[in-house]
């Protein structure tokens, strides 16, 4: 059995909305091993994005602990958190979030530049990653000249750039047409199988979720494992 890359214990997140509290996550527990491809499903508003944001250090838990590679990120200050985001996490968003003024290669390089990698090294790896996602030809194109599926593939290349411990994908196929959906899911499954990438993917789509080896349901603030 592979080692644990993520261990969540008694995680609670409470949002204050005026006088009312919204509590999407209550005493949630979850373990993910290195190399696992996990899909998280659940009704709208059940707290899926909230969970990914907490794992990705974009938000702070109200209570409980989140251990990534045995580091409890719940207790880290912002001055340390950005390094976790940079070195341990790769994000894939529903609407790609590429920087419009950078071309495909530069968008991939950006993640490495923030990590302080040298220019030659950066470019080399960016080209390799674009080849991996099948976009060698599109290196110089800015996002607006790429199709949505292509944009998401650039985003995937970007997420892989710093060799993260976990790839977090929040509805990566949510904005794509049927064909692109299939391509992206195939690409993610491939990365998992061939390169051993650890992926946690949120989706509404059962067919998409089916390509993951493990499917979780989030409801009432807790995780339920779907038994195969």
């Amino acid at each position, binding site marked *: 059995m592979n080692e644990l890359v993520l261990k969540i214990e008694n995680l609670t997140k409470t949002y204050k909305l005026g006088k009312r509290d919204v509590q999407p996550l209550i005493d949630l527990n979850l373990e993910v091993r290195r190399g696992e491809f996990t899909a998280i499903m659940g009704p709208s508003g059940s707290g899926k994005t909230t969970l990914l*944001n907490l794992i*990705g250090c*974009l*938000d702070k838990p109200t209570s409980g602990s989140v251990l990534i590679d045995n580091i409890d990120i719940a207790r880290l200050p*912002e*001055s340390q958190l*950005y*390094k976790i*985001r*940079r*070195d341990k*996490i790769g*994000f894939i*968003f529903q609407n790609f*979030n590429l*920087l*419009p*003024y*950078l071309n495909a290669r*530069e968008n991939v*390089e*950006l*993640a490495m*530049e*923030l*990590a302080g990698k040298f220019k030659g090294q950066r470019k080399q790896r960016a080209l390799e990653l674009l080849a991996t996602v099948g976009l060698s030809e599109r290196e110089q194109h800015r996002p607006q000249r790429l199709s949505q599926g292509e944009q998401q593939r650039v985003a995937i290349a*970007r997420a892989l750039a*710093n060799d993260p411990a976990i790839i977090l994908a929040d509805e990566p196929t949510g904005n794509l047409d049927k064909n692109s959906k299939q391509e992206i899911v195939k690409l993610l499954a491939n990365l998992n199988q061939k390169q051993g990438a650890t992926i946690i993917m949120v989706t509404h789509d059962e067919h998409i979720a089916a390509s993951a080896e493990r499917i979780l349901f989030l409801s009432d603030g807790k995780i339920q494992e779907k038994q195969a």
Partner: protein
Amino acid sequence: MGILTRATRNIARRKTRALLVIVALSLALAMIVSIPPSITASQEATQKTIDNLTTAAKIVASTVNMAATQMDCNLPLTLRTDAGPYHNETTFERPLMNITEYSNLTYVQHVTYVVPVLEQRAYDWPYTVYGVPLDDATLLSSYPILLPANITAGRNLQAGDSGVVVLHERIANHFGVAVGETVNIFGRDFEVVGIEGQEALNTTYATMSLSDAQAITNTTGQASTFIVFADSVDNVYAVKEQIVGAYPKLTVTIAQTLLNQVYQMQRQTNEQLQQAHETMNQIESTGIVEMGIITIADSAIILFIMLYTVRERTKEIGTLKALGASNTTILGQFMLEGVLLSLIAGIVGIVIGIFGATSLANILLPQPITQTGIGITTSGSGTWGGSGSLTAASISVTITPELMLFGLGFSVLLGALGSLYPAWRAARIRPAEAMRYE
């Protein structure tokens, strides 16, 4: 593809906005680089005026004061009746005074010189013999007004002269003599050394040494007038009072008009000096206030444009943070954009300044004042001084390399100042919220 590239591309991406901001900022920065040299140029122009005024005031003081400190002391005119060829003729006559009797005049306080002169009319043709003491070189150089003023031929009288005469041109014409020739006056021959030209107010004098004049008119030891000089225009009245007190019979005539004029000129000069100094201070304070306003307005423009940019790019900031950008990186990115924008405007502003600094200076600052001219007129009866009027002058300004550097530095500073708060806001954006922002 570093932070600088990102900043440049972001500016280039919003061309119209960048252009508008750069136009506004560059005009302001052109003013910023034009104001300091304009202040210097204006102040230099004004300082020159002040220097001119001061020099003019000094010249006026020496020449006009000389005439204005002069007073004539005479005995009152008396009537004299003589038998003429057809009837008795009555004339006014100036009684003569024995010089030694008035020796105490020299001791009157504030008196610098007492100069006895002799005026005797010739009856064969109406001209006047005028005797001036020529034995004191210092006196003559301090008070040149004692001698004829308008020599048109030959030379003037000088210390030590004797047996020579300077003739008014009408007398020379009457006798038909020229410089170097001899003329007979009151039965004695004199060499004509100079001719005095006709002027509006001068009298037809044959001017010679006092002792010669006394000798030919048999009036040795006597004078018709004591010319007394006070040490300053302010003491003229005091001197007059003392003389009248000591010699009640004497009539003391002061150069009243001239005195008034000197007083007025002193007042005027002081006013003009004050005005020039005020202008100088005003130029500086206006310039400083304007630079302050422009600085504030400039940073405000950058502040608002960068606040808008940060708001507009909230999602991008969220993405950058998700990718692992530190708060410092975000802060740096947005400050760099503000500084870059301001720097471009600074360069454009300097170019505008190079061509338009002079026009800008004339629009922005009070005009420095210069003097139109100072005039001193010398006439037979004295020296008249008058200072010209003060007028506004335009200046010309050039932008030096130092000023260009200053302009660039200033625009960087403005950019940093204006974008500090927006960049700080950007750095503080919470990533989870930024990702939800649409």
